[in-house]
């Protein structure tokens, strides 16, 4: 499996283009990521900006006109979003266009889409030095509702609650979509200032995956940044915390199924030379359907339908999850601890080891086939001291042994158990 060929070039101060030529799909993908430190304020402002930019620009002064221009351009998709990546708030602009080769009248779909996107990003509708008040207020309400509506999805909501408990006091505890109280205090002028600051100073990484030539992409992107005076700040970093809190938290809601989370601190980040040992440990524990958690907690004990574990290579956190009957918390915890003890005692069969490796290798190979996912994969690993590529990770993991997994399993330390359960009826 060959390495992904990425050609890197500077576009402007702190703006880098990562070009990947890919002819597999009929879509060209452009992802632009602005990275800022993760704070409740940045997360809230970035989320609000993401909503506001869809309301219109100088060239397309209403949502209808902006959407219409995109649709006429063969349904180009333009997405603005803000999310949490390690301890960064990332503001992303994603553009996906049908490749020019399929334009019925030879239109330049790609160039037009970039123009629309940058027009919306750099020249939104303003009045009196801030966002247009009417749109600003309406999107403030939408973001307010959206943050509160996180509760609608119980699995994701329970994870957010769990992380905020486990990482209390660390930037990582911040809700990636923002904070209701901070939201109330933001003004239209402040927010416009935030956007200007972000586009001129936040580290910006642009990924292109598709068929357009590198020269052409570079020229077009450069032109898009012409109106921006860049003075790049530095790339935000994520802090690894290894001290554990030893918390046991229970919260309740009117629900039928309970959600159990167990969180561990690990020294495993992308920059660690031992990172893949932890990846393999995660795969053996709960990373796939042939893992110990799936085979025992689900298949043997019938305790759940969903259970898995995962590893966050930016923050160095290992988490395990199961959606269970509210009565089965202790049973499930004990089953999980038992499996962890088994791994620590080296009770890992050759088949379990090989399955875990192969499942990971398959995942790495599939990512290389997916141009829409590649940018996020590489972006998450940009700060890594060790350059990472799906194919190298796949090759390296194949060399690991049971001893490596056992070693990794002994480096992790339990931090927090979080249980979202059914409200007791009086």
């Amino acid at each position: 499996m060959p390495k992904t060929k990425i050609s890197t070039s500077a576009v402007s101060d702190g703006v880098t283009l990562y070009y990947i030529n890919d002819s597999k799909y009929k879509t060209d993908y452009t992802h632009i990521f602005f990275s800022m430190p993760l704070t409740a304020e940045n997360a809230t402002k970035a989320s609000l900006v993401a909503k506001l930019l869809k309301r219109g620009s100088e060239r397309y002064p209403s949502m209808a006109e902006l959407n219409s221009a995109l649709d006429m351009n063969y349904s180009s998709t333009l997405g603005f979003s803000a999310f949490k990546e390690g301890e960064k708030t990332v503001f992303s602009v994603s553009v996906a266009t049908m490749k020019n080769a399929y334009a019925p009248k030879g239109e330049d779909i790609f160039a037009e889409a970039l123009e629309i996107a940058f027009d919306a990003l750099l020249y939104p509708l303003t009045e009196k030095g801030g966002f247009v008040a009417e749109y600003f207020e309406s999107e403030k309400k939408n973001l307010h509702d959206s943050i509160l509506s996180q509760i609608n999805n119980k699995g994701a909501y329970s994870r957010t609650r769990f992380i905020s408990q486990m990482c209390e006091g660390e930037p990582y505890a911040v809700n990636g979509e923002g904070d209701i109280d901070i939201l109330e205090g933001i003004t239209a002028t402040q927010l416009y200032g935030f956007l200007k600051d972000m586009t001129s100073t936040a580290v910006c990484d642009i990924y292109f995956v598709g068929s357009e030539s590198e020269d052409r992409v570079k020229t077009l992107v450069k032109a898009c940044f012409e109106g921006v005076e860049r003075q790049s700040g530095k790339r935000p970093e994520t802090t690894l915390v290894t001290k554990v809190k030893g918390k046991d938290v229970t919260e309740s809601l009117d629900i039928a199924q309970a959600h159990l989370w167990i969180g561990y601190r690990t020294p495993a980040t992308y920059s660690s030379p031992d990172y893949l040992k932890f990846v393999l440990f995660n795969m053996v524990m709960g990373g796939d359907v042939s893992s110990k958690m799936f085979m025992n907690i689900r298949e043997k004990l019938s305790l759940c339908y969903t259970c898995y574990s995962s590893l966050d290579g930016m923050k160095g956190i290992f988490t395990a999850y199961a959606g269970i009957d509210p009565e089965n918390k202790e049973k499930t915890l004990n089953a999980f601890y038992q499996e962890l003890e088994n791994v620590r005692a080296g009770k890992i069969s050759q088949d379990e080891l090989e399955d875990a490796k192969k499942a990971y290798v398959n995942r790495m190979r599939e990512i290389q086939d997916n141009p829409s996912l590649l940018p996020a994969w590489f972006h998450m690993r940009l700060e890594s001291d060790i350059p990472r590529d799906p194919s190298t990770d796949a090759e390296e993991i194949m060399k690991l042994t049971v001893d490596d997994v056992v070693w990794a399993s002994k480096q992790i330390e339990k931090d927090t158990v979080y249980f979202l359960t059914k409200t007791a009826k009086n």
Partner: protein
Amino acid sequence: MKFTKHTNSLLNESYYIGKHHSGLEVVVIPKDQMTLYATFATRYGSMDNTFKTNGSDYITVPDGIAHFLEHKLFESEDGTDTFSRFTALGASANAYTSNEVTSYLFSATENYYEALEVLLDFVTHPYFSKENVEKEMGIIEQELRMYEDNPYRWMYQELLRGLYQKNTVNIPVGGTVESIHEITPEILYDCYNTFYNLNNMVLIVCGNVTLDGVEGVMDKALKRSEPVSIDKKIADEPREVAREYAEKTFPVAYPVFNIGLKETDLKGDGRAYIKREFEHSIIAELVFGKTSEFYNALYSEGLINQKFGTSYYSSRTWAFFIASGESRDPKAVLERIKKELELWREGGRKISSEAFERAKRVLYSASVQAWNSTTDIAEGFLDYYLAGADVLELPEVLSSITVEDIERRLKTSYDTELMSMTVAKPEQKA
């Protein structure tokens, strides 16, 4: 086996279709990608609860059995774990059950033919025992509990119950905690032996494989199935909806809603099916899309937010238009949708040539970009295949649609008397 080649030169895509001597129809879609995707599907879903074969009497089986069967097929007589068989080949397997199809699938980046053989092997070798059926109850019960807590799932399920009086599309795919407890190994075998006859199934393979290679695996793994005639009892569905409104409280922040409108014109397979689907999609764009007056007006008024969306779901025996979203006043949204549809139906709003062209471009672009990942290609193919339609014909059918077709469709299919609504709302704070 004789394969017939179908090509679309505009899309630069082809597929091959053939009937294996075992009775199984197979479709091979060559794609030069590392990831191969294969789906082995049977025309059997949660709605097929009453059926007979070759002159026997109709039998009715417990709700949720197709889905239960899907879980149980991963069990093998010698106890080998099916997921691990795939993992050992570097492949990743899964399955799903819908109203009318059960599909077993895998993706692989190596050992394609070996993984394909495992797929054909495990699906054709059922093993149901009292013990393994019992064991599955706990797992499926937790799956159903997870759905119970999901307001979106509840709204969708209850919408189907609201729209349909008799059509069994209104049965929940997973059944209920009570109904699955009626399931026994014997009933599972009855259903298996009826619907998992190879003549009732299809295999779709998309990726870097050869026709000979696929045929070789089929020769090795499949035994011939005797032709079967399956008679699924399809109830006559009255025109009227079963219920106009249902609501339930959930731990949600604001009310969320589903609004459905029942389609009564279900005539035609193949191209007619594609055409009908496109007409509805064009209407969804024109009337409710992000460029429409409706969307922009309600958005400005704060009645809807970016979560609002519309779709059209269709099959051979049922079809409906659906709008979903979040609103502080869902009933007002329903009234506005009705009013908007009446306006369009009665000529109060006209289809501009620009809006029509725009809607067509949106759908054209989607039909081109449907040929990206091997997963999307094979799954998209299966949807149209089951409706007797050829996915390669999409761009051509789309370009043949006229403004008059849309005007006619608005009149024949958007009767606002045939609507139903479900709302998941937060508990009133005292």
